[in-house]
């Protein structure tokens, strides 16, 4: 395990140098705070940004992604044959993501990269990406990431973890990908491993003090699916829900998508878009029947998936990293922490 000191006066120069190898992503100003986007040459990531409204899942899984294209011009030999859309999978580095978002990508990986199925688009993007996280010194009131198996200085899924020490970053290089990134930036001022780790431990403990929610989900796995499914509290949980897709779109772990085909003149494209289980269309059948016809069904589905089906299927805890984005953005303040508590404490009478 390698530690490097990066003087902030060298940071920008290093990042610009790394552009010889990497396409850079990071938080940039947007009228709505910050969002994580590809950064044009000269544009620097805002490393001390507040939590971004949208998570970095879009770096690997864009909201709209063309996956196949075809030429409809019948004079061409290959007309109407769908071919994989040309995408760039050259190395990219995502800077300043929060540690819980890196764990979220590992949870999303369970869906896109597993023994049964490897999604070529997601896997190629993942392979090309180096994740450079920044420890969160002051977690906000919606952050409950210490409960979900990560926390403000978690290393899971990261290639490099940075700690902000005012005038410098202390970098913990965690993987060969991380080493390559640091080398490409020219960051090579080694730091004492023992002292550095001690510093990380102090920062982590200080940061964790800001997180007051201790979320328990220890009893979810033992509960019967049907008991939870038929529990009487869903009407209350769902009452205020307006059934928008905000919670699912801001969620770093929601991975559901829809496939759409569109044609324009002689070109056809098949693309995938984020889908949301909050929408009636999500389960609308061609027959007109909809098995999740009311918002209560849909709200229940969202929480059952995150807090029960996922727990049972993968044995990796809940499908939530505690970033609190859904809590912060929900127009009607539906709080997954409360729903989790209600489910965890539920005993069928």
């Amino acid at each position: 395990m390698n530690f490097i000191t990066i003087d902030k006066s060298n940071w920008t120069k290093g990042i610009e140098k790394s552009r010889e190898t990497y396409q850079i992503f990071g938080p940039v100003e947007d009228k709505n705070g910050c969002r994580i986007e590809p950064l044009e040459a000269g544009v620097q990531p805002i490393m001390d940004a507040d939590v971004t409204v949208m998570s970095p899942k879009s770096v690997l899984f864009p909201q709209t992604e063309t996956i196949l294209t075809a030429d409809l011009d019948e004079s061409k030999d290959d007309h109407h044959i769908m071919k994989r859309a040309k995408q760039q999978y050259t190395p990219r580095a995502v800077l300043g993501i929060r540690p819980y978002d890196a764990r979220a990508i590992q949870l999303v990986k369970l869906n896109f990269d597993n023994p049964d199925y490897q999604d070529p688009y997601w896997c190629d993007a993942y392979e090309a990406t180096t994740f450079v996280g920044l420890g969160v010194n002051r977690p906000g009131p919606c952050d409950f990431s210490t409960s979900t198996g990560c926390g403000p200085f978690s290393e899971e899924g990261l290639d490099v973890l940075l700690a902000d020490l005012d005038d410098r970053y202390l970098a913990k290089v965690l993987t060969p990908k991380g080493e390559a990134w640091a080398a490409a930036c020219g960051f090579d001022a080694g730091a004492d491993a023992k002292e550095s780790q001690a510093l990380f431990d102090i920062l982590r403990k200080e940061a964790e003090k800001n997180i007051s929610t201790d979320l328990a989900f220890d009893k979810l796995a033992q509960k019967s699916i049907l008991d939870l499914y038929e529990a009487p509290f869903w009407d209350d949980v769902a009452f205020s829900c307006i059934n928008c897709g905000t919670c699912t779109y801001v969620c770093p772990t929601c991975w559901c998508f829809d496939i759409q085909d569109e044609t324009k003149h002689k070109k056809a494209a098949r693309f995938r878009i984020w889908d949301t289980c909050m929408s009636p269309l999500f389960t609308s059948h061609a027959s007109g029947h909809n098995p999740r016809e009311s918002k209560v069904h849909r709200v229940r589905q969202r929480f059952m998936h995150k807090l029960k089906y996922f727990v049972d299927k993968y044995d990796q805890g809940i499908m939530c990293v505690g970033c609190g984005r859904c809590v912060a953005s929900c127009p009607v303040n539906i709080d997954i922490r409360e729903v989790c508590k209600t489910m965890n404490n539920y005993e069928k009478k």
Partner: protein
Amino acid sequence: MDTCIEKIKAICTDLFSKGEVEKVIGFAGGSIPMATRPIAVTSEADVEKLVFNAFCGLNLANYVTKNNLPKDGAKIAVVAKGCDARNLVTHMVENQVPRDQVYIIGVPCTGMADKRRIAQRFEDEITQCTQDGDTFTVTSALQQEVIAKKDVLRHNCQYCTHRNPPVYDVMAGEPVEEQILDQPFPDVDHIASMDPETRWDHFAELTKNCIRCYACRNACPLCYCPTCFVDESSPQWVGKGQDETDITTFHFLRAFHCAGRCTDCGACVEACPMGINVRDFTRKLNKDALDLFGWEAGMDLDRRPPLDVYSPDDPDDFIK
């Protein structure tokens, strides 16, 4: 305004004890600073859960629809600011809910706070916010500020001329003075003064970061269509990706669907997670309805909306 809550609770307790309503739709406290949540209170014991403060910015008429009224004709009560009450009236005028099934607890409103404007004053995340009358004490890890409500009022509340419900069954307080504005639509006038190219750019920029979550639509009491045109799949009227044309198609059509119906309650903007001021679309239509037809939605149970009546005095020639 915070004294209203005691009156609201007393009214609700009375309604439940007399068995006059099946439930009360109001606001409950939220789990994070500056948040509230709509709630249905069904018993006297739960009346304590109700709150009313400057963060009750959604429109509760959205929770009063044909399908969720009691089937046996029983009444429900709704805590209604001026705009919520106007949207209840709109529901009634549009034959969605019968007047005699809704008990309107009118709240004289002095405006809602804009959470984004408050958050902009802070470098880090807000950890606590308390309201005392017309001031807030807001705290983050780095700062504490005392903020006057008038300095962080939502834009629609600054230009509101119907703070008191025009129709109600009981008022939870003395009516407040209505604002008289010299320029009720400066924002619309500003956009109208742009040359077409600039105006197009303005709207393109406005919706640029739309994620199509449809929170604006779903927070709106007017959007009660069983299936919205964007959710139709056969035929599919509009593409579902992030294409600019599809995004603007949604916003334009949604706005036009609200013409002569919108009360400028601001719930759409309140709900938008991306900070898009979708009222830039609807406000123009509200101004047109007022200028051309002298119409403001939801003011009168007996007057038909301009878009469903023919009048020989119609300002347009083509229809005569």
